[in-house]
């Protein structure tokens, strides 16, 4: 099974990289972009085949190391 973990700064925590990208898009005349958030994606190949168990395990990984929950949120997708 593959787990895709998306980590990004929490809403309310200023994302300076997102702001810079937004500014660049403006400079390139891409209109209609309201907000930009930059995050990172971590892709894990798991040996676990049970989705529920995998979700529990990957959630633990996120809480312990993959995200810093003081400033970041994470989303897990299993495929």
């Amino acid at each position, binding site marked *: 099974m593959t787990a895709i973990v998306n980590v990004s*700064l929490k809403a309310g*925590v200023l994302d*300076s990289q997102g702001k*810079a990208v937004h500014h660049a898009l403006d400079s390139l005349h891409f209109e209609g972009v309201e907000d930009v958030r930059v995050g990172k994606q971590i892709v894990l190949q798991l040996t676990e085949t049970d989705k529920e168990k995998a979700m529990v395990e990957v959630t633990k990984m996120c809480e312990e*190391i993959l995200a*810093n929950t*003081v400033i970041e949120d994470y989303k897990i997708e299993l495929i």
Partner: protein
Amino acid sequence: MKVTILQFPGTNCEYDTQHAFEELGATTEIVWHKSETIPADTKLLVVAGGFSYGDYLRSGAIAKFSPVMKAVTEYANNGGKVLGICNGFQVLTEAGLLPGALKRNDGLHFISKHHTLKVENNDNIFLEKLNNGDVVNIPIAHHDGNYFIDSDGLKELYANNQVLLTYSDENGSAKNPNGSVDSIAGVCNKNKNVFGLMPHPERAMEAILGSDDGVKMLEGFLAS
């Protein structure tokens, strides 16, 4: 007095830190991160600056799982004095020994220059040789020095006098190089035995090299 300095792969300020403390009369020992113990006679443990594990994932995120960190946490929880400088500060926040987190600088640039700091609270061994309101000149060198803490956490920091230093101009008015909440440059834990700051006091030990304002900071530990 024995100062123990931690060394992770990517640490690069351990020898500066060692030199600074030895100039002040301390004996020092550099301990590799694989060690599961720290010297029993350690009176101060320093997590030195650098780029532990290449700052992969997040600054300090991987270092917190090094074997030595269990001993560090135990040492801190037993009241041992711990000082994290720059990457060391990042490691200590990641390890949960200090509140808050360090984000990418708002301007996205690595900043390396001398900066003035204002002493906010000197009721701790780190800053006891300075007065509140004093302005010191200490180099900064970081990419991820943008201190963040949520509003409840910030209130708690102020309530317990845990804000140690803020970035300021030469007159002590706030001047923020990196976007830190309330221009915070350094904090301590509630028990005032764990200290962290982004600036490098160990690089401000000789006036001929730009500033010797770091001496009074590091001396605070030696006096105790």
